[in-house]
């Protein structure tokens, strides 16, 4: 009968348990990282903002809590003012240097946006979106500007 040394038996089991735990921890980290990834958040925010603009009448001010997005942007060294950009009727949300997700809205309005003041705790995690009626650039206005120059 071959007697197995106690030390060998214990070490083998410990190594086995440690490897299993390592596997589970890596798996859990992967799952959590996927859920809070920049790509997913960018898409979520862009679509959310586009739908809000679509449903908002002219003269509406929208405040969105983007705490999670701003934290990720700070971590990825993206300026908070560059997180949300609206040009024409397209919303672009960028939470990483090389990232960015665009989504268009069909409401024909002029939209301005800006992040909350970072030094004011009550609004630092908010992003403000102002929906204004479309400004038509009339030829008469252009002549006035040229005359002034």
């Amino acid at each position, binding site marked *: 009968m071959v007697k197995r040394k106690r030390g060998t038996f214990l070490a*083998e089991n410990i190594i086995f348990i440690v490897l299993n735990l390592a596997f589970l921890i890596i798996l859990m980290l992967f799952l959590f990282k996927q859920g809070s990834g920049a790509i997913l958040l960018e898409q979520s925010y862009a679509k959310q903002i586009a739908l809000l603009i679509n449903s908002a009448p002219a003269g509406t001010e929208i405040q969105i809590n983007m705490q999670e997005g701003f934290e990720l942007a700070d971590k990825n060294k993206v300026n908070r003012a560059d997180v949300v950009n609206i040009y024409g009727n397209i919303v672009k949300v960028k939470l990483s240097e090389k990232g960015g997700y665009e989504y268009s809205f069909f409401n024909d*309005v002029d939209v301005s946006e800006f992040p909350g003041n970072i030094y004011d705790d009550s609004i630092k995690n908010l992003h403000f979106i102002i929906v204004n009626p479309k400004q038509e650039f009339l030829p008469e206005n252009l002549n006035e500007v040229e005359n002034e120059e």
Partner: protein
Amino acid sequence: MKNKKGTDMILSVYWFAILALVAAGIFVMVYLFYGHPSDVREMEVSILIDKIATCFAQGGRVLDNVGEINSGNFLEKCNLDFDVEEVFKIREGQYYVNISFDKLDNPENIFHEVIEVGNANFVSSCFSDDVEYKRQAICIQEKFYALSQDNKKIMITIFASVRKTEKNAK
């Protein structure tokens, strides 16, 4: 006497092979779940229909300027912009709207011409039984009643459709 060490080592190999298979399965499931974009088209179409409805009638009454709206100036009059981002192959073909006006007391008389704007090519996919074709576009039709200026009962039918498949369905 049999040496059990060799047997234990072989079992460990099988065990880690099973773990690797389980991990691969979980990775695939997570990729499929998070890799699938969120589909907001149904909400988008609903908002579009509400916006169009307020362009033609408010408070149960058809607005005075409805007669001035036609397919050519519909987008401008109702403050809509159907232009989309560059990723879509057809930039001006992601939306479709069809608005019809029926007089309830005398269906033969036309209250207003049918207004049709956008790309109608993908609309047929909404009526297909094929699951793959149904994901091509989301279509919703809503009807509501309003009174005209001369108190005639009008039924306004709005059919709206959004494609944007590349960003909402995979």
